C-alpha cells in the first residue's frame, strides 16, 4: 500500500500531456504489431484499426513499451497493476493502456473525465457510490452517487464497453437508455443496492442490448412503471442470456413472456425469480431449463389461482432433472410442505439461501442433512440454535454463514444465541466468513470460534440489544472480540457489537493488523478507543462508526492515515464542526462532508454525520443542501 498519496497526486496533475504522447506511441506500435497479430489487453485492438500495414522503424522506447505491453496485459489484479504503474512513467503509461477492468471504490474519489483520460481501453467498469450505512436510513435520501456523469463520459470514451457493475449508485432510466444506446457490444449489467430506475429502464436494456449475457438486479429498488420489461427482449431467435436475476423486483412479471424467454435462452445458467412467480410457474420454467446452475425459486408457494385438488406438479422430478444446480435461493413465501421437493439436488448444493424462508429447525433438518457439500449458507434465525446444530453436524465444508433475524428488533426473544455460534464453530472448521444476528452472546462462544475457525477473514457479530454484556458473566464483550483479532490471523473485516469498552479497541489496534473494514456501533468509552484503532491498524481502509463517544481528539489521531483510507463515517458521535474543520485544513486532498440529518435530535455543537474520503477532485458539485463540505 502506498504510504504517501501526495506523490501520486502530483503525477496525476502532470499526466494529460504525457498521456497524449503515450497514445500516439501506442497507436503506431499497434499498427506495427498488428502485422504479427499480437495486441494488448488480451483482445482485438479497439478503435480505429490500421487501414494499411504501415511499417515504421520502432525507436528504442517503443520497443520497450511493446514488450511491457505484452507483459502487463496479463496482470489482472488491480493491486498489482497499481504497483506496476508506480515504477516509472513508461510503466505508468503502459499499465494505463493495458488495464481493461476499471474499479472505482468511491465514485467521488476521481472524476469520470480523469478516469477515462488515463485509462483509454477499458471494457469493464465497477463503481461504488453511497456509504454502506446509508442502507440503514442513517443518511437522508438523495445524497448523491449519480451514475449519470459516468455513463455520459463513458459513452464517448469507451464505445466498446462490455460490463458495468454498480453498487449503491443512483441510476435513472435515462442513464440506462444512454447505456443501451452507446455500447453496441454491451454484455453485462449488474446493479447491487441501486435505486432511481424502474421497469421502463429495464425495458430499454432488454430491447436494445442484443448481446446481453447478464442482467443481475440484486437488492435494488426498482420502480414499478407498469412496463412489461420482460416482453421487450427480442421475440425471435436464441438469446445470449446466461444470467437473469430479478428477485428484488417488487412488481408482477409477465410469466408467459418469461417462459418464452427462458425457452429460447439455451445458455441460461443463473435464474433468480421474484416472489410473483408461483411454484407452479417455477415448475414450468425448470422443465425448460434443466441446465441451470443457480436458481432463485420465487415464492415457493402456491398462487391464489391454483384450483383445489389440481394435480400437484412433480417437483421432485423437476429438481432431480436439474443435475447442475449448485446454488439455490428464493423461498420468499415458502410453504414448508414443498420443501422436500428439493431433496434430489441437496447433495450437489454448494450455496443455499434460506434467508427469506421462515422455517423452523425440524423443517430445516429435512433438507440440511443432505447438504454435505454446502459452502455458503444464508438462513433466518427461525431455525433456532437447534437448526444451527444440525448445520454444524452436516456441513463440514461450510465457508460462509449468515444468520438473519426474522424479527429485527432489540427486545424479542432471540431464537439463536451463543449456543448456536459455539456449535457452528465446532462443526464448521473451515469457516471463512460469518454474519450473525442474535440477542444474547457470551465471550466464551466467541473465543471458541476464534480458536476453532482459524481461517476466518470476515467476522460480523450483531448483538441486537445495544450495550448488551456477556449473557452469562455480565462482563463486556471485550475478550471475545479480542480473541477474534488475536487468533484469526487472516481477519480483514470485523463488525463489533454488545457492551464494549476501550479495551476491545486496544485489542483491535494491537492485533488487527490486516483489518481493512471495521464497523462499530454503540461501543467504547472514550477517545482512546478510536485512537487505538487509527494508530494500530495500518491496513484500515473503511471505517464506519455510529453512536459511540469518540470526539475531536480521536479524529485528530488519524491524520497520518486518512489518505490511505477509502472513507471514514462517523455518525452520532462527539465531533464538533471545529474538529472536522481542522482535519479538512490539514488534509487538502480529503473531502470532509458534514451531513445534517434532521431526524436526529442534537445540540447545535455536535456533528450529526461526518463522511470523509480522499479525492483528486476536491469538493463535489452535486452535493445536496443538507451536505456541507468543509475546507
Amino acid at each position, binding site marked *: 500500500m502506498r504510504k504517501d498519496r501526495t506523490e501520486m497526486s502530483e503525477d496525476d496533475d502532470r499526466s494529460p500531456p504525457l498521456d497524449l504522447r503515450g497514445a500516439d506511441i501506442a497507436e503506431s506500435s499497434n499498427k506495427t504489431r498488428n502485422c504479427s497479430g499480437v495486441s494488448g489487453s488480451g483482445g482485438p485492438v479497439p478503435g480505429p484499426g490500421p487501414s494499411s500495414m504501415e511499417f515504421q522503424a520502432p525507436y528504442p522506447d517503443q520497443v520497450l513499451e511493446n514488450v511491457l505491453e505484452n507483459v502487463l496485459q496479463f496482470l489482472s489484479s488491480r493491486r498489482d497493476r497499481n504497483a506496476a504503474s508506480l515504477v516509472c512513467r513508461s510503466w505508468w503509461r503502459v499499465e494505463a493502456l493495458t488495464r481493461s477492468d476499471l474499479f472505482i471504490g468511491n465514485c467521488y474519489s476521481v472524476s469520470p473525465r480523469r478516469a477515462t483520460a488515463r485509462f483509454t481501453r477499458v471494457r469493464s467498469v465497477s463503481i461504488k457510490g453511497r456509504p454502506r*450505512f446509508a*442502507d*440503514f*436510513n442513517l443518511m437522508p435520501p438523495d445524497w448523491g452517487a449519480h451514475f449519470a456523469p459516468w455513463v455520459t463520459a463513458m459513452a464517448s470514451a469507451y464505445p466498446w464497453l462490455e460490463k458495468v457493475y454498480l453498487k449503491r449508485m443512483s441510476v435513472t432510466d435515462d442513464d440506462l437508455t444512454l447505456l443501451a444506446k452507446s455500447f453496441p457490444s454491451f454484455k453485462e449489467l449488474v446493479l447491487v*443496492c441501486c435505486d432511481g430506475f424502474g421497469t421502463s429502464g429495464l425495458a430499454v436494456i432488454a430491447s436494445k442490448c442484443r448481446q446481453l449475457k447478464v442482467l443481475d438486479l440484486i*437488492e435494488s*429498488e426498482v420502480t414499478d412503471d407498469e412496463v412489461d420489461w420482460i416482453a421487450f427482449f427480442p421475440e425471435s431467435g436464441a438469446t445470449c442470456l446466461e444470467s437473469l436475476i430479478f428477485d*428484488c423486483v417488487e412488481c408482477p412479471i409477465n410469466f408467459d413472456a418469461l417462459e418464452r424467454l427462458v425457452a429460447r435462452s439455451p445458455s441460461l445458467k443463473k435464474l433468480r425469480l421474484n*416472489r410473483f412467480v408461483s411454484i407452479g410457474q417455477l415448475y414450468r420454467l425448470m422443465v425448460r431449463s434443466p441446465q441451470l446452475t443457480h436458481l432463485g425459486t420465487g415464492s415457493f408457494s402456491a398462487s391464489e389461482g391454483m384450483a*383445489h385438488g389440481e394435480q400437484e406438479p412433480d417437483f421432485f422430478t423437476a429438481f432431480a432433472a436439474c443435475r447442475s444446480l449448485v446454488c439455490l435461493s428464493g423461498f*420468499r*413465501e415458502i410453504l*414448508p*410442505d414443498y420443501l422436500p421437493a428439493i431433496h434430489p439436488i441437496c447433495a450437489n448444493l454448494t450455496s443455499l439461501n434460506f*434467508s*427469506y424462508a*421462515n422455517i*423452523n429447525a*425440524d*423443517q430445516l433438518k429435512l433438507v440440511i442433512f443432505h447438504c454435505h457439500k454446502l459452502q455458503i449458507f444464508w438462513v433466518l434465525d427461525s431455525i433456532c440454535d437447534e437448526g444451527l446444530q444440525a448445520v454444524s453436524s452436516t456441513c463440514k465444508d461450510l465457508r460462509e454463514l449468515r444468520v*438473519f433475524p*426474522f*424479527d*429485527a*428488533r*432489540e*427486545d*424479542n*426473544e432471540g431464537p439463536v444465541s451463543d449456543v448456536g455460534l459455539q456449535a457452528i464453530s465446532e462443526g464448521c472448521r473451515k469457516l471463512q466468513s460469518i454474519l450473525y*444476528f442474535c440477542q444474547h452472546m457470551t465471550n466464551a462462544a466467541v473465543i471458541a470460534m476464534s480458536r476453532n475457525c482459524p481461517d476466518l477473514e470476515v467476522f460480523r457479530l*450483531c448483538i*441486537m*440489544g*445495544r*450495550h*448488551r*454484556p456477556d449473557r452469562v458473566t*455480565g*462482563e*463486556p464483550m471485550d475478550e471475545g472480540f479480542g480473541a477474534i483479532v488475536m487468533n484469526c490471523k487472516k481477519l480483514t473485516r470485523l463488525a463489533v457489537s454488545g*457492551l464494549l*469498552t476501550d479495551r476491545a479497541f486496544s485489542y483491535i489496534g494491537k492485533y488487527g493488523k490486516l483489518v481493512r473494514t471495521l464497523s462499530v*456501533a*454503540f461501543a*467504547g*468509552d*472514550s477517545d482512546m478507543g478510536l485512537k487505538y484503532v487509527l494508530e494500530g491498524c495500518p491496513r484500515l481502509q473503511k471505517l464506519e462508526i*455510529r*453512536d*459511540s*463517544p*469518540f470526539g475531536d481528539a480521536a479524529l485528530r489521531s488519524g491524520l497520518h492515515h486518512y489518505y490511505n483510507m477509502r472513507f471514514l463515517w462517523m455518525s*452520532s*458521535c*462527539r465531533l464538533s464542526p471545529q474538529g472536522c474543520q481542522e482535519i479538512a485544513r490539514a488534509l487538502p486532498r480529503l473531502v470532509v462532508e458534514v451531513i445534517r440529518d434532521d*431526524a*436526529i*435530535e*442534537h445540540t447545535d455543537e*455536535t456533528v450529526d454525520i461526518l463522511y470523509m474520503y480522499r479525492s483528486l477532485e476536491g469538493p463535489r458539485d452535486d452535493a445536496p443542501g443538507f451536505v456541507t463540505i468543509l475546507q
Partner: protein
Amino acid sequence: MEKSVNYGGHHDDLNLEATKLRLGLPGIISSDIGYEKQSSSASTVVVVRNNKRASPVGIMTQESSSKSHSNVSDARNGDPNSHHQPPAKAQVVGWPPIRSFRRNSFQQKKTDQGDGAGMYVKVSMDGAPYLRKVDLKVYKSYPELLTALENMFKFTIGEYSEREGYNRSEYAPTYEDKDGDWMLVGDVPWDMFIFSCKRLRIMKGSEARGLGCL
C-alpha cells in the same frame, strides 16, 4: 420468556379486567405502565417511545441490559439521548442494521399471512353467547391448545383419535382452514395447523359426530 395470554378482547361492557390473567402484582393497572401490548408484540403493535424507564413491575425486563457494568463510565454512551440502559422498547433508526428490503419482506408476510409473532384467531363455542380469541403462537402442541380451550369455556373435550375424532366427548374442536373448509382439530401436524387455521369453533357433540364419521 413467557408470554401472557390475552384471553379477552377489549370488551369494556363485560368487565374482563377483573378476571384477566396477567403477570404482575395485584392492584397495578396496565395503563399506568404505558404499554399497549405485551413484550412479544404482534405485528400491529405501536412501539411506545418512552424516554423514562417504566416501572419494572409487570413488565418483562431485559435482564442484562438493565445492569450497567461497574467499570464503564458515564461517558461511554455517545448517544445524545443517552441513558445507561437503552430506552425500553424505543426503536432506534437503522438498528439493527438490516436493509429495508429484507425488513419489509417480512412485514409483508406478517400482514398477509398472520404469521410471525401473535396469531390471534376467533374461537366460538356452540351455545356460548360471545366469542373469544386465542393466540395460537403461544401453544406448542394440540394438548396445550385444547387444555386452554377447555379452561376458557369450561368444558371437556376428551381424547382425539384418528379414527373417531372426538366421539367420546360432548364437544369437538373444529377449525376453518385457508380454503374455507371446516376441519377437525388434530388431523394435521401442529405446524401446518397453525399456518392454515383461520378460526376455531367448538361444536356440540351431535353435530361433530357427523364430522368424525367422514
